[in-house]
């Protein structure tokens, strides 16, 4: 378990290097989410996105990237909303240990 001061006031990791799968579970549980295989697939995808583009995605690019990498079934807003309710790009990035997306409401 990471101490509270490892996170900013919005719950995003301050140091991206602190991230581990256990940290992801910790963040998710603080958000009331239990991570399933579906979640982990998107978390991995988000971390790949960050490595590729040096940024956290807004919703639109996240959906397109999912479609590109995981197929059109999963490249849909509704699928991502079902896993990460509310704002999937923001919540998913938070759990995946990415910086807060710039272009998210």
């Amino acid at each position: 378990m990471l101490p509270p001061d490892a996170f900013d006031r919005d719950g995003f990791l301050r140091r991206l290097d602190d991230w581990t799968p256990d940290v992801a579970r910790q963040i998710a549980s603080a958000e009331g989410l239990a991570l399933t295989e579906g979640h982990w697939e998107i978390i991995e995808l988000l971390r790949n996105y960050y490595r590729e583009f040096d940024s956290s995605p807004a919703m639109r690019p996240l959906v397109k990237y999912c479609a590109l990498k995981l197929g059109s079934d999963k490249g849909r807003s509704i699928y991502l909303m079902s896993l990460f309710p509310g704002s999937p790009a923001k919540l998913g990035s938070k759990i995946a240990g990415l910086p807060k997306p710039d272009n998210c409401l």
Partner: protein
Amino acid sequence: MAASEAKRVLLVIRHSPYGSSLARASIDLALAAAAFDQDVSLLFLGDGVLQLCPDQQADAVGSRNLGRLLASLPLYDITQVYVDADAVTRYRLDLAAAPVTAQALDRQAISQLMGSHDHLVGF
């Protein structure tokens, strides 16, 4: 707003990627506008073409990598990306290796491009 009424915005990007924060600000603005369904085009002009250098290693100066950020433009549906052909020649840039696909325009075509947009935002 209906698509036919949408104002077309051209971002004219004239600064090198790491010499100031302007380059980063211009791309952030482009992504934010696209995330909100605005019709945005990008023109890399003059020194702005230096943002299209391949193999940028921004971590060497502790910056975020602008080249890799540019590679995400198509995911934001920003596909109207133009570049100043004269500056590309002057810096002997290889557009084929650029992080994002950009169409090279000569001086006259750039003037036409500017005339075909409702708003010009210089960076």
